[in-house]
């Protein structure tokens, strides 16, 4: 982006939000959201529907106004700037292409509306159609293009006028899995090629991890964590974040020193995560465990690499091709349930429903969270 050339402007963030709030009737859609996005970065706002992520995007695009808080784009307060005067390109959930225009006219539209020199427009439209790999399809109308091709027109239309900021409102949600993965990589490629600061909104954790430099996890209008994808994965700051990023098992218990979790008289060693408040000994706590970090072994043994093991009964073994998913019951822990994934079924013994096994894990994989305040916990 041209702004990066100016040395003094280099450390001004692309987006700076301070205490943004928005209410619809009785529902508080967004509560005091504060974050910054550095120039050229790819931010994903991850959360379930109704978490406030789309509201956040609409505030940045200028379609709605915040009830409170301060929003700056590239250092400029934008409260009073209408959407068509913000330098923000957007790809919409249902794409919102103009059905009465050809693909090329759709892409040319922002240039015409922004009064670009008419002589430059055709070449520029061609260049951007090529960027999204739609060479030669410019004369088709949206209804004559496939879903993936329409997606690409929408991307070209959002980027063609060199916006300072690109917003993606779950544009991949309606695609089938294969096309979605292809488009995720495509977005990443184009974003890197143009270096445009991008904010993507999604409820797909894989998409967030694959595409982003920075991920914000939202729930109930609040930002729960703002971190790099790897940090989010390794150090979830909230049990909701852990659950949303694929942690399959939560064991309820009481916090103990060590740190550890006491469940039905058993002391299970674990660790706290950076950014999450440490559970206080004697208070309710929960331990989160990823299914793929659980190792199964013969009953009564400590499976290799484990710091702790519990007795488990196999309830179901689901063959998923490259892996086997075990649903386990833990009679020693008051009948709690545990999921385990054997990612290399060929190398280890298979277990059948009814088998008694030992389920073990390393202390570093058992994440302990305070549960005295139960809000935001997954069931």
């Amino acid at each position, binding site marked *: 982006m041209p702004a990066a050339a100016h040395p003094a402007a280099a450390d001004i963030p692309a987006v700076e939000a301070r205490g943004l709030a928005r209410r619809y009737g009785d529902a508080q859609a967004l509560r005091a959201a504060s974050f910054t996005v550095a120039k050229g970065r790819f931010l994903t706002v991850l959360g379930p529907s109704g978490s406030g992520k789309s509201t956040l995007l609409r505030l940045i695009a200028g379609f709605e106004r915040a009830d409170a808080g301060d929003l700056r784009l590239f250092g400029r307060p934008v409260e009073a700037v209408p*959407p068509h005067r913000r330098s923000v390109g957007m790809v919409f*959930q249902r794409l919102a292409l103009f059905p009465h225009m050809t693909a090329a006219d759709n892409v040319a539209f922002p240039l015409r509306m922004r009064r670009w020199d008419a002589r430059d427009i055709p070449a520029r439209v061609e260049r951007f159609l090529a960027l999204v790999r739609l060479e030669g399809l410019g004369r088709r109308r949206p209804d004559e293009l496939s879903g993936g091709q329409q997606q690409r027109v929408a991307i070209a239309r959002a980027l063609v006028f060199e916006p300072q900021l690109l917003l993606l409102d779950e544009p991949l949600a309606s695609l089938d899995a294969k096309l979605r993965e292809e488009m995720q990589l495509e977005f990443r490629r184009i974003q890197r090629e143009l270096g445009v600061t991008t904010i993507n909104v999604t409820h797909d954790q894989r998409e967030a991890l694959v595409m982003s430099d920075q991920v914000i996890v939202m729930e109930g209008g609040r930002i729960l964590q703002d971190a790099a994808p790897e940090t989010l994965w390794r150090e979830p700051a909230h049990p909701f974040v852990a659950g949303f990023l694929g942690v399959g098992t939560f064991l309820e218990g009481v916090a103990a020193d060590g740190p550890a979790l006491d469940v039905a008289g058993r002391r299970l060693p674990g660790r706290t995560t950076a950014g999450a408040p440490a559970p206080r000994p004697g208070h309710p706590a929960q331990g989160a465990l990823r299914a793929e970090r659980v190792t199964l072994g013969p009953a009564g043994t400590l499976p290799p690499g484990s710091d702790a093991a519990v007795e488990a009964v196999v309830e179901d073994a689901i063959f998923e091709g490259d892996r086997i998913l075990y649903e386990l019951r833990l009679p020693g822990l008051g009948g709690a349930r545990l999921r385990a994934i054997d990612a290399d079924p060929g190398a280890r013994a298979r277990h059948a429903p009814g088998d008694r096994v030992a389920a073990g894990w390393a202390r570093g994989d058992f994440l302990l969270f305070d549960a005295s305040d139960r809000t935001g916990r997954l069931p």
Partner: protein
Amino acid sequence: MSDADGRSARGRAGPRPPLAAYPLGWRVLDALEAAAELWPRRWGGAVKWLMLLPALALVGLLLWGLGVMADASLRAMDFRTYRLAEEWSAANFAKAWGSAAFWATARRSLVAAVAVTAICLALALPYAYAMTRTRRPGLRRLLLIGLFLPFFIGQVVRAYGWLILLGQQGMVNQALGAAGLGPYRLLFEYPTVIFGLVQYMLPFAALMLAPALAAVPEEVERAAASCGASWPRTLWHVVIPMARPGLIAAALVVSTLTLTDFAMPAIMGGGGSDFLANLVYDQFFRTSDAGLGSAITLILTFLGTTVAAVLLTMAGIAAQGGRGRR
């Protein structure tokens, strides 16, 4: 009926639950389906034509009437005997062609059709837009009532209402008089007729536009804004082109209804601002010249058809299938 097999297969699938468990409407449909079983299956293909029969009968009647009119239009009236001539001639059309009064009336009808259509579309568009876009249910309800209420009040009643309001001693002139103005001659002028017609046609236009505007997703308008289009440009470049089928349909209804209108020019025009329909009425019921009346009727039908054809061509058949020029 062709799906009878599937239906009976489903019917056999299990014990029937108690009838009372289903709403009355379902049971009525069950009875109709049972009755349909009596219809011989070999004649199944005839059913769809049977359904068209009433409409076809009405259209046929209309065409028959037009044929009678066409026949009469080619027979000159003999004013000594008050009978139409035995042999065909173009005398009636020649008479209309040579009459300054006919041309003035025809021009008045056409100008009114164009002007009323333009004014109605311009006024109905914001109304229908507000009605389909507002997030306040109270306002939407109010606008809907405002749209449908005029349909409960007939055209003649409304025209008389305007007579009372706009007369020399009417409320408008009284108000102007209180302000030291007038009185003005507000009635029995061409612009008054146009005004009355606009007031009468506006709900039709808004009613036809509303579904077309509702079909334009708000997300598309936001997309236009994010592309840098101000609201007027979004309206011009995106909303109006996307709502084109509705605009064409509204124009079609308003222009043909205005072109052929009778009551407004008769009541609010006071005889000085007649349209072609008034001229036809005069021929049939004042001078009793059924031949000339029929000729003018045919000309009016031709004009209306031409206007409709022009509008449909402008639509590029878009109004039919939603897929415009390719």
